[in-house]
């Protein structure tokens, strides 16, 4: 186990290092730079030079990279090129928002996908089948930004039930928080749910044909218990793999959702950073995301082991 943990950690570190290295160089390949972004349309060469010196962009790339690695190792993510804020503060501010958003997205997505997929897997169900296909198709066919805007129009403008945009931290009360996060979360959740509905349906349908499901039926268990206790844990490996995979999509979705709903979360910080060529911020966000993903990865593996005792952790499973 110790060996496994160590190996796992080393791998995680390698991944994180690769990620930040790739980002470091790739963002510098993108045309335009922080100077263009900060100084606007017209600026003097002196102004550019001064700014470059301030941002350390006048040094050779490899030196910049070395310094960056050194700083990152000491957990210093640097300051935003715009100045005034450290990337860490930006993230500290943004993380709870994105966390709330993706959490609701995850919950909504799973609450939508799994019961629907499970019901649809039982072929006799005349309602769940089409509904689940519907959710799957809508989720896969309508862009998140479009759904978001439609939701705002409906829930905020026409009905006036929920605030049109923004985020309220939990300290302002659970109701406030939920009110703000519900709509974007649902919007995100729907997109997240779509592939999950399909995979749940397909793998559950397969698991339902297994003899142990027949056996459970032969015992006289209720259909709901058969599903929850016998089929779900077995059918869930691909669902979890898929769910894990699509947490990536969840973040992509968050980029758009946060823009539409004006939530200053990690996704928007990243988009802003890219627009402004805010290298330290881009690097910081991607570092964060890669760490999160590495953790998600490990969690998914552990979840496999919890669900299915046959899974051996050594070597890991997807």
């Amino acid at each position, binding site marked *: 186990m110790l060996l496994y943990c160590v190996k796992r950690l080393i791998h995680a570190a390698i991944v994180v290092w690769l990620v930040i290295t790739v980002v470091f160089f*790739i963002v510098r390949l993108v045309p335009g730079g922080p100077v263009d972004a900060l100084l606007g349309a017209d600026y003097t060469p002196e102004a550019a030079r001064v700014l470059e010196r301030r941002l350390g962009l006048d040094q050779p790339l490899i030196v910049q990279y070395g310094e960056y690695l050194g700083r990152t190792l000491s957990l210093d993510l640097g300051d935003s090129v715009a100045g005034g804020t450290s990337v860490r503060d930006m993230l500290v501010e943004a993380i709870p928002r994105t966390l709330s958003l993706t959490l609701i997205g995850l919950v909504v997505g799973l609450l939508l996908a799994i019961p629907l997929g499970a019901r649809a897997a039982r072929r006799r169900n005349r309602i769940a089948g089409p509904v689940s296909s519907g959710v799957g198709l809508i989720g*896969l066919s309508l862009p998140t930004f479009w759904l978001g805007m439609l939701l705002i129009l409906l829930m905020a403008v026409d009905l006036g039930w929920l605030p049109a945009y923004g985020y309220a931290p939990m300290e302002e009360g659970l109701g406030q928080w939920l009110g703000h996060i519900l709509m974007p979360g649902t919007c995100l959740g729907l997109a997240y749910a779509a592939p999950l509905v399909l995979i749940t349906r397909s793998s559950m349908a397969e698991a339902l044909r297994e003899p142990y499901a027949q056996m459970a039926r032969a015992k006289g268990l209720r259909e709901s218990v058969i599903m929850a206790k016998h089929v779900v844990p077995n059918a869930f490996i691909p669902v979890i793999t898929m769910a894990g995979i699509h947490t990536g*999509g969840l973040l992509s979705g968050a980029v758009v959702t946060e823009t539409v709903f004006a939530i200053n979360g990690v996704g928007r910080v990243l988009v802003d950073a890219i627009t402004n060529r805010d290298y330290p911020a881009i690097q910081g966000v991607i570092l964060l995301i890669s760490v999160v993903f590495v953790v998600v990865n490990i969690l998914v593996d552990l979840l496999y082991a919890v669900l299915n005792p046959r899974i051996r952790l050594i070597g890991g499973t997807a």
Partner: protein
Amino acid sequence: MTTTATTRTSVRSRLLHDRLGLVSMAILLVLILAAVFGPMLSPYDPNSQEHDLLLPPSGAHLMGTDSLGRDVFSRVLNGTRVSVAVGIGVALIGGIVGTVLGLLAGFFRGWIDDVISRLVEVQWAFPELIAALVIVSILGNGFGNVILAISITYVDDFARLVRGETLRLRDSEFVTAARVIGMRKTPMLAREVLPNAFGPIIVQATSAVGAGILGEAALSFLGLGVAADTPTWGLILSDSRDFFHSAWWLAVFPGLCIMITVLGTNLFGRALQRSFGTSEAL
């Protein structure tokens, strides 16, 4: 795949006798025809702004006109080529590359797995949209680049999924049986492991088709789609967002087209799966 003539024909004939399979093939055929002949069939120039603004659907404009006075039907028809190509391209490129990587990693384990898994994780750490955005920014936009950019971002999804399935399958008895008959590893992967991982791959591919089309839309939304003057379903949909209340047709038709494409690929995948021997229809 070369098996005997009998099995090949039987897959084909089963596919041809599958009702939903036929429906799906009809959908895909229509889409392909629309993609190929769309520009010829389109009643108007898709970019011509000669019509009145925001006309609801009518005989002259089957899907109405948009806010610049363009014929939506012509745009949707012309958009088929790009959107279907992006969607299916992403599913195919991402699917093939990812599946191969996943198979190799899951099957051979060891250092191959380590290398592939690490690379896949690295790619996974970049949110798809962002990665596509950056790639397009570097390569410049345009049809090929957009397909490439979005496809690359989906490789990891397939790779992870297939690796998981491969791990699950590689120790199964029928794979051992294939070893016993002396099968080489490559055919073993292709014929024993892969077909059994088909279910999740199909689902993933289906969502990749949708995701590809929407990815292009999201890039358009951020201004980096195929091109500002090439109609795509995503672009049309993205343009529709200012007219929720006043012009439903702007969103409904491209949305329906995407849905039908996703549905078509999904059904086709499932039919294919059935024809390859999952016995029961859903």
